[in-house]
């Protein structure tokens, strides 16, 4: 579970990212984080990833108060989370297979585990046949699918997706969200920050809307609610 308790984030230049935000996300949920640009979505994602720490309040993930996490413990928190970015963040000099295996090498998984898990992850995102290709030889949607495979290959409890469809056409974006839905159905909690109105409206999942750093809406089967 994830708990934000009265979380405020004020950046060094005085910008308020989040202002006294509280919410709870249960294990296995699929949650969209929506809101206008600059509303605080990215701050929320950064706090989850421990890229930033709250100015006040607590961020609790699996009974651990990550706001008070020591620097040396951050990697172990991140290993429980898969992360997908808008810009894919793949290593251009590694093949599709190597990009996915990379996430396992980092946690020092055995070669045997890597050989077993990487093909499974690639199969889940439908890219088994492109394992030997370089990211530059793939389309945007395919690159994001590689990023998804990398995010799930270590069986994380949480998948954080920051605008994963932002650089994709509607059809490809729908495919990516379908994969995310599949991953969620296997028990992984998915938190997705997005501007994709059609996707949010069609999925009928929980929606947390943030405006000016505060929660404007938190609906169990919500809609996007903004005009793009």
């Amino acid at each position, binding site marked *: 579970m994830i708990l934000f308790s009265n979380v405020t984030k004020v950046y060094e230049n005085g910008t308020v990212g989040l202002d006294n935000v509280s919410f709870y996300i249960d294990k296995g949920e699929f949650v969209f984080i929506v809101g206008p640009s600059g509303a605080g979505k990215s701050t929320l994602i950064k706090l989850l990833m421990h890229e930033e720490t709250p100015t006040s309040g607590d961020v609790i993930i699996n009974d651990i108060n990550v706001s008070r996490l020591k620097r040396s413990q951050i990697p172990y928190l991140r290993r429980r989370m898969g992360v997908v970015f808008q810009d894919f963040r793949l290593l251009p000099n590694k093949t599709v297979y190597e990009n996915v295996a990379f996430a396992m090498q*980092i*946690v020092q998984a055995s070669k045997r585990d890597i050989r077993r898990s990487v093909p499974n992850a690639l199969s889940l995102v439908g890219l088994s046949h492109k394992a030997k290709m370089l990211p530059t030889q793939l389309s945007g949607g395919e690159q994001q699918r590689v990023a998804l495979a990398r995010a799930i290959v270590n069986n994380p409890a949480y998948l954080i997706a920051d605008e994963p469809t932002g650089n994709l056409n509607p059809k490809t974006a729908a495919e990516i969200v379908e994969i995310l839905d599949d991953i969620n159905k296997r028990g992984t909690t998915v938190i997705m920050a997005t501007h994709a109105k059609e996707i949010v409206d069609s999925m009928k999942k929980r929606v947390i809307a943030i405006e000016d750093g505060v929660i404007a809406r938190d609906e169990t089967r919500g809609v996007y609610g903004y005009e793009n």
Partner: protein
Amino acid sequence: MKIRGGRYFIKEAFRNVFSNGWMSMASILTVVASLLVFGLFMILSINVSYFAEQIEADYEIIVMVDETVGEDRLAAIGEEIRNIPNVQEVVLNPNDQRLADLKEDLGEDASVLDGYEEDNPLRDWYMVTMESLDLAEQTAAQLEQISGVAKIARNQDTINTLVTVTDSISNISIWVMLALAIVSVFIISNTIKLTVFARRKEINIMKFVGATDWFIRWPFVIEGVIIGFFGCIISLLILGFAYNGLLGMVENLGITFVKFVPLSRIWLTSSGLFALMGILLGGIGSLISVRKYLKV
């Protein structure tokens, strides 16, 4: 560090060295340049010390024994001299031997000394060499205290100048070498920083996937060590050949008054020191470079 982690780090480090060929070459050349200057000062310092050692070994204090002293006391004086801590070697030059030497020096005119064998006006001398010239003054004072010693002869100015010069050169060399090491670490860290900068995206991804700081650092540190090691080998070869050439040139020119340390005597020490310097320069340089990109 698990073994498979270790293999991964080494493999990554070598891959990085070769895939960033030009950058690695620039870093290696930086190490070579630093170590060459470092080596020049090291060789200078070693040779100055060697030169001083030779002079120290040859330098003697002459202890002139009073002519009224008998055979027993003469031997006892020799023993007292040997018991002084800084004294290395004591050789008696008896007056009859000195007279014989003098006659030999005079050659055809030696006859002027005829008849002096029976009533030798020369004093017995002890030729005293010391372990350290730094303590020469103290040793001389102790020698003068011995009963039966008429006079001692030494050249304190020469000793003082020699000690001052060798100490200054050693001190300057140490400071220059230290300054060079700091400058080298700075230059190497900047060079490696460029390779780290080129791979900041990779580091960022590693951080988000849950890599520990040391997991990220190791390949860079090993890369630095490899670069340092190659730099050390190249600079050692250049210095070795150059020094050997210098020794050969000195020998061919027939210069005998200046003796250089033979290459065989400094080869092992300098190889070890260079390897250590190269590895430390590269390793520390890398550690400094990668630090900035770990703050995610």
